[in-house]
């Protein structure tokens, strides 16, 4: 990576500060750059060559916000907390251009309730048709009812049929390097990067490690776990919640459980170390 564009940006950022602050920051950058080159220059596979054509950087939150606005979103209510804060922050900054109303709610439950007040299908007051929405058990007109024996079973059946529909729409797990494996690690959500990192580390050890990674867990997708594999579970909780779910639903067995519950992120090295400790 070329150091000069970073230097130029330091000058820009600290333009209003003293020359001393600028040169201190440039020195710090130089020291860090030198150290990184020396220690990781050979092994790091990230390259950032200088480009001549124009580029700009957009964060996922900004892209998502823009996409939502062009998908018809006109209102967002939110309570600040990473990683979602950037969405409403961005929309607030371009509110006039996009014609989108933004509101910071007093708490998360207020935020979701404000949004649910927007009635997704038929807008009340747009015609003489009335819109009914109810959170309790209700009849086909949306009215609360105490006659549960006559109403509830049909309503429950209706909801279960939605569950069946969801089953077809749910994302199956991602399979990574499942051919010729010695061991397969199963994980969900944010452990994906650590699993891939672990798989790379095991390659150096001469072990072929595959990965099955879930992003959507309920209803569980139709999925056939290969029968001839050895499975390990990797999770950021003490009791192995996913492994219990998978045992129940797919009847698969785990050779080992790698869990982390000290509040720190799971890393490739952590998975590797636990694997050898338990093997």
């Amino acid at each position, binding site marked *: 990576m070329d150091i000069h564009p970073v230097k130029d940006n330091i000058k820009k950022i600290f333009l209003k500060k003293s020359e001393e602050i600028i040169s201190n920051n440039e020195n710090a950058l130089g020291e860090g750059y030198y150290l990184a080159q020396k220690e990781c220059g050979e092994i790091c596979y990230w390259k950032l060559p200088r480009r001549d054509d124009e580029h*700009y*950087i*957009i*964060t996922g939150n*900004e892209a998502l916000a*823009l996409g939502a*606005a*062009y*998908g*018809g979103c*006109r*209102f967002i*209510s939110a309570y600040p907390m990473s990683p979602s804060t950037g969405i409403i922050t*961005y929309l607030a*900054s*371009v*509110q*006039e*251009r*996009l*014609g989108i*109303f933004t*509101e910071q*709610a*007093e*708490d998360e*439950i*207020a*935020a979701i*309730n*404000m*949004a*649910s*007040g*927007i*009635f997704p299908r038929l*807008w*009340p*007051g*747009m*015609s*003489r*048709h*009335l*819109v*009914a*929405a*109810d*959170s*309790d058990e209700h009849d086909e007109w*949306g*009215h*609360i009812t*105490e006659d549960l024996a006559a109403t509830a079973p049909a309503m429950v059946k209706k909801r279960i049929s939605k569950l069946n529909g969801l089953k077809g729409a749910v994302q199956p797990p991602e399979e990574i390097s499942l051919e010729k494996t010695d061991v397969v690690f199963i994980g969900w959500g944010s452990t994906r990067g650590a699993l891939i990192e672990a798989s790379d580390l095991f390659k150096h050890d001469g072990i072929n490690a595959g990965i099955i990674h879930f992003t959507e867990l309920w209803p569980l997708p139709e999925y056939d776990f290969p029968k001839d594999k050895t499975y390990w579970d990797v999770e950021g909780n003490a009791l192995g919640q996913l492994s219990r779910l998978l045992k129940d639903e797919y009847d698969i067995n785990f050779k080992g459980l790698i869990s982390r519950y000290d509040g720190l992120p799971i890393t490739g090295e952590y998975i590797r170390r636990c694997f050898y400790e338990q093997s």
Partner: protein
Amino acid sequence: MNNLDEYNNQVEIQWCPGCPNFGILNALKGALVELGKSPHEICLVSGIGQAAKLPHYLKCNFFNGLHGRAIPVATGIQVVNPDLTTIVVTGDGDCYGEGGNHFIHGIRRNADITVLVHNNEIYALTKGQASPTTPLGEKRRLQIRGVEIPPLNMPAFAIMQDCGFVARGFAGDREQLQDILVRAIKHRGMSYVDIIQPCITWGTHPLNWYKEKIAKLGDEYDPGDKIAALSMALIKDDLIHTGVLYEAPSANIFAARFRKEVTTRPLTGLGMQKAENIYNLFSEFKQSF
């Protein structure tokens, strides 16, 4: 063109026969007719409790949602669809207990909604426990040694926080209540009516006990005087003062700046924005990233 029959629907009412909630229901129907509103122009929003069942008992749009959460839902409805008359129907447990945070911030936000609190000073749906407005020392089914924490005085709080319309009604006086409701619905910004609604099943006192304590605010009372209104809300003279306690023109109505600077049209009717080419779109917005 409008009459009470237009608001009738065929839903079996689950309140006890003779419940003062019927008085509130009738006063609300009367107020809507008096205002010339049709059912499709109204949206009632509620949470959980006996009061929260009211939207089922007249013809209208309604959203009977989660316990305590009616005010945020109503805020969302009003912002995207300002032409609707949006009314929250709630109780002392639902609004001051479960949803107290939303009531507090609802006053700050000042959306153009009306909040009707059926205040029976107990939890009636769950058979008579203390609520946030049960008097100190009153023995309840769960508080068998008497209530040990003082009640909330929400009308005083609302006046202190400049809620633009604060009133107290009595479910047993339909005529006065209807007048209050008409004024509350007409008021621009959040209007709030605490309605004394004696519970005839789990309450401590008979209906007449309340009737004897009612003291209507007279013509000499000036609801525009904030300090006088606060004094009236705080007064401890063993009477129940009913009428409009405080009324002031609302300076900052929620979303007013947005409507002025961005669009006055209901957001529900704006439709999709067109973007033919993703590269052009990103280029157009790149300075904002």
